[in-house]
């Protein structure tokens, strides 16, 4: 039975599918024609057919096949035309891909920044800078006393020496600081308020209590810059939407113009089709498919551009997030986002062509 495996090989399957689609119909057809038009052969050879038959022909399934054939033909012949003029196609698709990748790249960057901002928000905290004359031991005691406050979730003490160590590791100014002889950094107590403290007034109250403590030199709420970051993010998000809209319009116009040129190049064909009774939708079809292919390929190319962009940015961003000890993973386009990207690009391609065609075909008169 091992030898039978061969029959399921890929080319065999293709051949089988092909035969089932066409071969058997080919075999079936002559019989049917003889049944339906018994005198057909003779008439066709001796004299021309009259106008007896109304404008309809073939049975329903043949017509249905014809309909799908037309679409399939339009789909692939429009692809063929793109390949036939590679330079024009590549130039158009590159321009569109750049526009689309700008929009989707912006989207990805904002998504990543939002994730970063989200991590920062989780650590939104109050920093208490202690007076210089407070010893490490007293600082510890103070920290422990704060921990007992019910509004406080977590307390972390960073002593002068720990702060110095960290500073030396990351800043690169280690030697310079050492030469000062004295550690200029204060002891810092980082207080994370209870999650329930969303209320700004309560946070202010807590902050004021800390400010009045004897050990505290000054207190600062990190919230403020998180807020600022958040509003900046909102700004970036909106800018992204505006940018995408503008670039979307650009994509519409570029595809529209490409299709207009193609229509111009195939004007003769369109005119002849109109003269022999083509409807506008018949004429539009291959051009709409051209628009689809242009949009689709631009989307694919844009995806690759964004991917390369992200690969280049991956290391610096991950280093940055390492500094914050954040739980940060670089985001890339998910499967569904990729599908949306391809869908929108294809849709823009079709819409751009459609807008131009419905206008141009209205204008175009035979001869």
């Amino acid at each position, binding site marked *: 039975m091992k030898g039978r495996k061969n029959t399921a090989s890929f080319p065999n399957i293709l051949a089988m599918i092909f035969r089932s689609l066409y071969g058997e119909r080919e075999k079936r057809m002559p019989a049917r024609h003889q049944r339906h038009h018994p005198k057909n052969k003779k008439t066709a050879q001796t*004299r021309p057919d009259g*106008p007896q038959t109304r404008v309809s022909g073939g049975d329903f399934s043949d017509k249905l096949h*014809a309909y799908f054939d037309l679409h399939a033909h339009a789909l692939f012949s429009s692809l063929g035309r793109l390949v036939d003029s590679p330079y024009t196609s590549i130039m158009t698709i590159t321009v569109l891909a750049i526009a689309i990748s700008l929009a989707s790249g912006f989207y990805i960057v904002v998504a990543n920044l939002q994730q970063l901002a989200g991590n920062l928000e989780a650590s939104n905290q109050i920093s208490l800078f202690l007076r210089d004359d407070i010893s490490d031991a007293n600082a510890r005691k103070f920290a422990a006393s704060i921990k007992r406050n019910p509004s406080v979730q977590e307390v972390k003490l960073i002593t002068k020496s720990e702060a110095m160590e960290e500073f030396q590791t990351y800043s690169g100014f280690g030697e310079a600081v050492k030469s000062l002889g004295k550690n200029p950094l204060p002891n810092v107590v980082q207080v994370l308020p209870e999650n329930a403290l969303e209320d700004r007034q309560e946070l202010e109250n807590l902050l004021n209590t800390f400010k009045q403590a004897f050990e505290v030199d000054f207190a600062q709420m990190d919230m403020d810059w998180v807020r600022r970051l958040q509003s900046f993010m909102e700004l970036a998000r909106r800018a992204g939407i505006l940018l995408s809209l503008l670039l979307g319009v650009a994509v519409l116009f570029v595809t529209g113009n490409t299709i207009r040129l193609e229509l111009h190049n195939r004007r003769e064909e369109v005119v002849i089709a109109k003269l022999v*009774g083509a409807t506008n939708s018949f004429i539009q079809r291959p051009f709409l498919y051209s628009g689809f292919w242009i949009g689709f390929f631009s989307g694919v190319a844009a995806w690759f551009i964004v991917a390369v962009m992200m690969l280049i940015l991956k290391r610096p961003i991950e280093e940055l997030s390492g500094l914050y000890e954040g739980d940060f993973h670089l985001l890339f386009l998910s499967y569904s986002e990729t599908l949306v990207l391809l869908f929108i690009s294809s849709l823009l391609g079709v819409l751009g062509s459609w807008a131009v065609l419905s206008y141009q075909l209205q204008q175009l008169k035979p001869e």
Partner: protein
Amino acid sequence: MRKPLSTHYSSTTENVMLKFDRVSKRYPETGDVLRNISFHLQHGEMAFLTGHSGAGKSTLLKLIAVIERSSRGQILLDGHNLNHAKDRQIPYLRRKIGLIFQDYKLLQDRTVFDNVALPLLIAGYGRHEVSRRVRASLDKVGLLGKERKYPLALSGGEQQRVGIARAVVNKPPMILADEPTGNLDPELSAEIMHLFEQFQQVGVTVLIASHDISLISQMNYRVLKLDHGQLVAS
């Protein structure tokens, strides 16, 4: 999919394929090109449309194919009033007419088969029906066996036969030919005319615009004569 065309039958025009009733055509640039034209053609009738160059022959044919619209008067094609035809109905009206041109209007980058098949693809025929009809049509014009050739590989007479095969492949009840032999020598012209006679014999209405008086006079058919946009004899 196919919307029924509005029909307008009147009892007296039952057997009339084409009826012009006081039709005028005015172009803004050139003024009245056709003036007060009235005539009709019976189903299966064959007629010549003649007149000097610029008399309005092509314009008259364009009105029938709704390539242009009349400025005044009524045109009835197979019972349909063309004045009332909406833009989206025009393609279906054109499928009733086989158009033939002096310059053949063939697609040079398509084979003979594909050129002739075009009207059938447009009308939505299946591939087997298309193949059968294209062959039958090419057979009628004596070009069976040249399906795979490109138009430029054919002589002028053969190219015009391809144009005729394309015009009749859909079995339209009417054929309009605008100077079909204008680019052909007399012998080929006579052959083409003989083809038209064959279509007329099986019931197709044929209207041929031509200014080739000698050719027309050899054949015994009705002649509509235009002179500066007016019908002077019919």
